[in-house]
């Protein structure tokens, strides 16, 4: 990797306090020690040095990150900042948590290390997210309580939502009302579900029907434009797409990057290096190597596994896929894990291609209307 | 009245290396002698110094002024240094540019520091012949391209004739592609060859077709006289040419023949009418006090009744004074009315009360 920025998805633990049925990760109790973290930090900052990469964003994810004590993160930050300073690199940190373990003891870390921001997940309706022995409904109640506590402490919580069949049945109005009005979220993002990881009943009917999902998205889009867009409610990927079509700003979700392999890398607590958290714990054949065993991260990133993911867009063009699509520049064939988990091969389009095209077309037109209305004001 | 500038149109010779079908300038003559030139510049200096006139321009005309050769213009520069130590005269020229090569070119690059020259071409019809009877177009084109390379602003003129009507669009694009910054489409009342004779109606029709081509090109090229009419119609800015505007007494224009005879306009010099005397006998104060010194501006201010009452008077002001008939109208009146009526239907015709601007003399 080269260029000014690298994103590292760092899993300090694969331990989790939840028992979500659709999880794509194979959980273990592995947890990163500070010593191992120091070696890891040194190796990946060496890689940045060798490849003239100036900035790093670390996305702390799990398992569940809050199953490790807050003190670990402060020490981790100190280690990483020291390694970065000595190489004149800058580092930012972000955190993704299920919020179950959140309490006031986390406020200091979240403020100092994570800029008072935290990402989490909440589904509507929640069919699969729960703690062991609990129910989805109780999970949501607990989550909402934790969310409000965090919000009252000044923490900006954004949320990922994974739609399911029931979401489509209940419709966009109910969906929007739940998140924006009932829970009181000001920022949420919808990720398309995929049957990653070990098989489970919750994954058997994935992918969702693309036409129904497209209708859902478009209905939600209209509701948001009417009630939330001007009021500062952010829904991903809608506002990123509006920004893209209005200004060309390339800040789209990773599933649409022309080469996620060029921008992201994931390391789990055992040192396994893979493309992202969707791959590392469940797809050993797609691991690039182990950072504690190889001579350098640079060497690991030359692996065949990474090359396959990196060159997936090339294969799609060779197969005649995507080249004729109006929105090639937005999507580049979509997400490799979604393609692999559904089609069992990398060299296939994202299974939600139809949904994305409907969304792109709609937002393309909406951006035009927004631009015109701004110029008419 | 304060004189702000003075322009002399000097014809050092009436000889020419071309035989244009429409030319009335070519006559047997002596060339402007050096003593007469010296006399002219001495008197001019006395006048401009006495009246604090800083803007002095000399437009070398003819015949073909480049026939005088580099030596003559070297002398002009020497005399200028002597008589005008503190003022730089702006030299321009009207030429067929066939002789713009070699030493003549080198000297003119020194003389004409403002880099302004008038040229003339007919790309499609043999109306401009050499003395040997061949089409002068290749040499003129070569000279034009050389002038452009040397950074000259070329005020290109095309003399409109009957056959021009067949090639209106081609003319427009040829001159635009030539790279000259402006083109004047100028009619002349008489042609040596009746096949080329242009009537006022022909001229009006030519201008109409030209306007259409110009409009289709979004008025990109500076085309005279169309551009000054359009400027007036859109913004009220008065016409500025000596034909369609009005010369100003504060910027007098005097023509000097090779013998030193003085005229208010070079077309009067061609016809040998309205001579005001000779530079050998008069001071510039006396010249400018002559009744005919301001003949052009007087004619424009005292229009005949038909012109004064014409709805198009602001666009025309009776046209070129040298083309007036006995009634005081221009020979081209009917043709001009045709184009004005046509343009009026396209552009809004404001009710601007025209204050005629001070015209810039400079037609061929």
């Amino acid at each position, binding site marked *: 990797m080269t*260029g000014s920025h690298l994103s590292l998805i760092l899993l300090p633990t694969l331990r989790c306090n939840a028992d979500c049925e659709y999880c794509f990760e194979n959980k273990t109790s592995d947890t990163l020690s500070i010593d191992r973290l120091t070696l890891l930090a040194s190796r990946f900052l060496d890689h940045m040095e060798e490849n003239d990469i100036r900035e790093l964003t670390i996305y702390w994810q799990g398992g569940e990150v809050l199953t490790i004590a807050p003190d670990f993160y402060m020490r981790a930050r100190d280690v990483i900042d020291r390694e970065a300073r000595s190489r004149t690199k800058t580092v930012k940190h972000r955190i993704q948590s299920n919020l179950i373990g959140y309490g006031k003891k986390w406020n200091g870390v979240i403020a100092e290390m994570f800029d008072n921001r935290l990402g989490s997940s909440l589904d509507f309706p929640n069919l699969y997210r729960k703690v062991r022995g609990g129910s989805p409904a109780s999970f949501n109640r607990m989550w909402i309580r934790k969310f409000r506590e965090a919000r009252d402490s000044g923490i900006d919580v954004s949320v990922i939502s994974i739609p399911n069949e029931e979401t489509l049945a209940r419709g966009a109005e109910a969906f929007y009302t739940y998140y924006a009005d009932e829970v009181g979220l000001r920022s949420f993002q919808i990720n398309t579900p995929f049957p990653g990881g070990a098989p489970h009943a919750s994954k058997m009917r994935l992918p969702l029907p693309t036409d129904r999902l497209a209708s859902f998205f478009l209905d939600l889009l209209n509701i948001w434009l009417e009630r939330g867009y001007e009021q500062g409610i952010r829904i991903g990927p809608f506002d990123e797409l509006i920004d893209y079509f209005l200004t060309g700003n*390339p800040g789209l979700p990773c599933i649409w990057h022309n080469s996620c392999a060029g921008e992201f890398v994931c390391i789990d607590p055992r040192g396994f290096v893979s493309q992202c958290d969707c791959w590392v714990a469940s797809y050993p054949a797609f691991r690039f190597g182990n950072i504690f065993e190889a001579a350098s991260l640079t060497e690991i990133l030359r692996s065949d596994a990474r090359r396959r993911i990196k060159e997936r867009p090339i294969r799609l*063009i060779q197969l005649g896929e995507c080249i004729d699509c109006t929105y090639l520049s937005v999507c580049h064939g979509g997400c490799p894990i979604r393609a692999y988990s559904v089609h069992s091969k990398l060299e296939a389009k994202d299974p939600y291609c139809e949904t994305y095209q409907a969304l792109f077309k709609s937002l393309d037109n909406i951006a035009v209307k927004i631009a015109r209305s701004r110029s008419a004001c | 009245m304060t004189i702000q500038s003075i322009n002399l149109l000097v014809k050092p010779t009436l000889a020419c290396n071309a035989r244009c079908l429409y030319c009335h300038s070519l006559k047997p003559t002596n060339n402007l002698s050096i003593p007469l030139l010296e006399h002219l510049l001495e008197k001019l200096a006395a006048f401009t110094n006495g009246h604090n006139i800083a803007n002095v321009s000399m437009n070398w005309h003819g015949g073909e002024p480049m026939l005088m050769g580099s030596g003559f213009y070297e002398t002009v520069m020497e005399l200028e240094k002597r008589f005008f130590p503190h003022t730089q005269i702006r030299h321009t020229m009207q030429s067929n540019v066939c002789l713009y090569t070699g030493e003549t070119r080198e000297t003119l690059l020194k003389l004409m520091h403002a880099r302004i020259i008038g040229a003339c071409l007919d790309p499609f019809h043999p109306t401009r012949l050499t003395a040997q009877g061949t089409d002068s177009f290749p040499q003129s084109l070569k000279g034009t391209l050389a002038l452009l390379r040397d950074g000259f602003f070329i005020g290109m003129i095309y003399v409109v004739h009957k056959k021009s009507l067949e090639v209106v669009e081609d003319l427009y694009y040829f001159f635009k*592609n030539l790279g000259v910054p402006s083109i004047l489409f100028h009619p002349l009342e008489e042609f040596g060859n009746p096949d080329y004779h242009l009537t006022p109606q022909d001229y009006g029709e030519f201008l109409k077709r030209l306007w259409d081509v110009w409009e289709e090109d979004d008025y990109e090229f500076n085309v005279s006289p169309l551009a000054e009419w359009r400027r007036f119609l859109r913004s009220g800015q008065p016409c500025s040419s000596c034909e369609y505007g009005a010369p100003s007494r504060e910027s007098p224009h005097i023509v000097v023949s090779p013998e030193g005879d003085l005229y208010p306009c070079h077309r009067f010099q061609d016809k040998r009418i309205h001579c005001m005397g000779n530079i050998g006998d008069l001071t510039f104060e006396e010249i400018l006090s002559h009744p005919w010194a301001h003949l052009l501006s007087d004619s424009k201010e005292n229009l005949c009744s038909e012109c004064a009452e014409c709805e198009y008077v602001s666009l025309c002001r009776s046209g070129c004074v040298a083309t007036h008939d006995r009634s005081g109208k221009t020979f081209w009146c009917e043709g001009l009315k045709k184009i004005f009526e046509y343009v009026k239907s396209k552009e809004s015709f404001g009710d601007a009360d025209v204050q005629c601007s001070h015209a810039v003399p400079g037609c061929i």
Partner: protein
Amino acid sequence: MLTYNVPTLFLDAYEDTKLIVRSDDVNRLVASLSNAHADRIVTIQARSLAADPEALLKAPRTVPVDVVVGEPGAEYENIYRYSEVARKHPVRVSVRVFPGFGKVVKLAASLNFPVKLEIGELDRDLAAEIVESLDYYLHSSTLGQPIEFFHSVLLGFYHNHPLTLWQVMEEDPAELRFVTDEGKLVLSERLAAVEPGADPSTYIDELRGELLAEKGECSLCRFFKNCGGYFRAADRKFRCDDVKRIFQTLRNAAKELKHDYAQLVTSEERPRA
């Protein structure tokens, strides 16, 4: 200072010029940047997509990279490999116009690379493909980089200040020359067979004079100021109808843009309630 386009083999042969260095081999291009004359290299030109351009990531400095896609079957999809290169070096894709070139343009544009079309011979089918690319350039809502020559010609019409195709296509011999693989200095790769004359820097001016003197199609063409005889230089029998249609489309688009912008300005000046 003139710029010479040279193969890496002749890198040391030209002093007092800026250099565009070209090769099929990316490693040779990288090596050239460590050469004693490397400070005069203004662009490197990759002539093949077969090899992985990874070596460019280790280049000693940042330098513009021009990726030339020469013919059909050139594995154009490998342009994707340059998206990582683009994090270190500005990348442009130069596309020789051949049947199917439109896909190359689309892919390069989708990766946010500027594109330069290189037109040699032109038949009806190719012309139709160019018109398709032109339509894509004018109307795609996701295009964020120029496609030349469309872009500069459009701007020339818009500002009424045209550049000629000689300048847009970087073929003005007053600024750029080409050294063939055999070491011969010519006007440009496209005009390798044309005699440059005693002073190549005056070639375009002389060509222009010749075309005007002929009083043929070029001298009367409404797009001569934009074209400058670019297509007729290589082939005096070049049929210009399709090129004129392209120019006219760009001209109309510029007019539309000017009109729309004028409306926008007017609406911004309107008094608000």
